[in-house]
């Protein structure tokens, strides 16, 4: 039964999203905007993997994104790896950071969020340190003009989005995902159901880190010129969290809905008339917190429509 559900979710959610993301550049010329959508779709699902399935709110989620971007760039600059291989370095960098930060999982609630935020800021300070200019180019930023390939990197970003959505579909329809939800609900009761609490949490943490690291690597490839404050901007964390929460976490469609609606509004009016945008955005988020703390998807569930 779980398997048929997973198949249905793949056919009716993953494939359409990937088809739209993959084919839209043929009809719409602003590829950078579409690329940013793909980045946020991936990051919002990455937050979903962690927050939705374990309850840890990663305010420093951008840390994984940033080290992914730098892992990619350093591999290209110093090891002269081709971009696709350098993405492996991006993934490795994020997973290593995840490993180093694993002890943070001992904290809970706001303490975890703050410690995670501090960790991402620390990573930013390290890579932008002028004394490391020889290695990271310090505060002067990275330029990877040699590997610039917008169409290919866009395609790879869509592939990573597919991988991420696949992961969330797996979590939504597997014993492992259910074990995670049990741990999120009550870790002691979960252990009493035979679940290895530390292992399941750590795996989700690493999956979430991996996703952000990969998309961070592709981001570096796609833009190919950036500063440390670009890829460590707290806005990435905040946007990804707000998008995921808006739609509803621990669901597949929630974060997608959040990105399409909120990032859509942001791009439609946020850039032309930022004053209205902030008003509308603020009102939306307040309304959400007050009336739909479990996201828009929970509204459908309240009406009896089961939204995956």
């Amino acid at each position, binding site marked *: 039964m*779980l398997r048929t559900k997973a198949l249905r979710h793949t056919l009716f959610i993953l494939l359409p999203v990937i088809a739209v993301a993959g084919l839209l550049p043929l009809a719409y010329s602003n590829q950078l905007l579409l690329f940013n959508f793909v980045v946020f779709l991936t990051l919002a699902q990455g937050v979903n993997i962690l927050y939705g399935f374990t309850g840890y709110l990663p305010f420093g989620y951008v840390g994984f994104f940033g080290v992914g971007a730098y892992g990619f760039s350093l591999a290209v600059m110093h090891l002269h790896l081709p971009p696709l291989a350098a993405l492996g370095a991006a993934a490795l960098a994020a997973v290593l950071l995840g490993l180093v930060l694993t002890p943070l999982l001992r904290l809970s609630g706001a303490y975890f969020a703050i410690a995670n935020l501090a960790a991402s800021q620390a990573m930013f300070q390290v890579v932008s340190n002028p004394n490391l200019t020889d290695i990271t180019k310090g505060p002067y930023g990275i330029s990877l003009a040699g590997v610039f390939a917008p169409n290919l990197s866009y395609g790879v970003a869509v592939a990573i989005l597919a991988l991420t959505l696949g992961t969330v579909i797996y979590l939504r329809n597997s*014993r492992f995902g*259910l*074990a995670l*939800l*049990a741990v999120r*609900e*009550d870790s*002691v*009761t*979960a*252990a*009493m*159901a*035979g*679940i*290895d*609490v530390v292992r399941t949490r750590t795996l989700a943490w690493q999956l979430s880190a991996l996703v952000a690291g990969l998309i961070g690597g592709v981001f570096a490839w796609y833009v190919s010129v950036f500063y440390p404050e670009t890829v460590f901007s707290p806005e990435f964390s905040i946007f990804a969290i707000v998008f995921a929460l808006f739609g509803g976490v621990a669901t597949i469609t929630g974060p997608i809905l959040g990105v399409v609606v909120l990032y859509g509004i942001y791009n439609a009016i946020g850039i032309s008339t930022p004053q209205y945008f902030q008003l509308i955005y603020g009102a939306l988020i307040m309304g959400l917190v007050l009336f739909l703390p479990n996201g828009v998807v929970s509204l459908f569930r309240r009406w009896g429509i089961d939204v995956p």
Partner: protein
Amino acid sequence: MSAELLAASGIEAGYGKVQVLWGAGLSVQDGETVVLLGANGAGKTSLLKVLMGLIPLWRGALQFAGLDMAHLRTDRRVRAGLAYMSEIGCFPGLTVEENIRIGGQFVASAELGRRMKELYDIFPAIAERRDTLASSLSGGQRKMLGIAKALAGRPKLLIMDEPSAGLSPRLVAEVIDVLGRLGGQGLSLLIAEQNVNFLSLADRVYTLDGGRIGFTGSVAEMHDNDALRRAYFGLK
């Protein structure tokens, strides 16, 4: 002669510097129903928590199905065949079916499917509500769900902490009825209670007082003991 399933002896444990258990010990034979009787604060929950590895064992021996469990992690003990139902017992934020699936985490899917059918037959009230959140169940239904969840993994021994807590007398009778049937099917049970109605299930009784085991024996022997009769049955 039935085999010894659980054997705990000389259990000493506590919280921080405060010692709560002072050399308590008990055993459960295969297929036996044992009731651990004690007032509030006697150390029942603490003893069960030691058995499950939820609080560390200071001193003493702990064996289950021939396995030394003294320092095994909780989830490993559960995988070895121990199941524990706390007073909460289920995950309110998940559906009935998800709760049972979590209980059967480490059972093969085909087997779990069969098991779920059996459990829904035993607990028809929760079968009707399999897709609703556990938080929407009544207290009695939640208790039944907790038992179903604990049984999904086909445990050898089900340990229960005050199954009567928060239930009306009618529901207590229902729980006793279900446990009686499960015991009849060969499941071993260890039930910590202060409600003496559960003694009707017991093959053997332990009384726990001040972190020490007082009396061990059958219900009939307990009735013959004047001091115990006064303390637990309120009879002269």
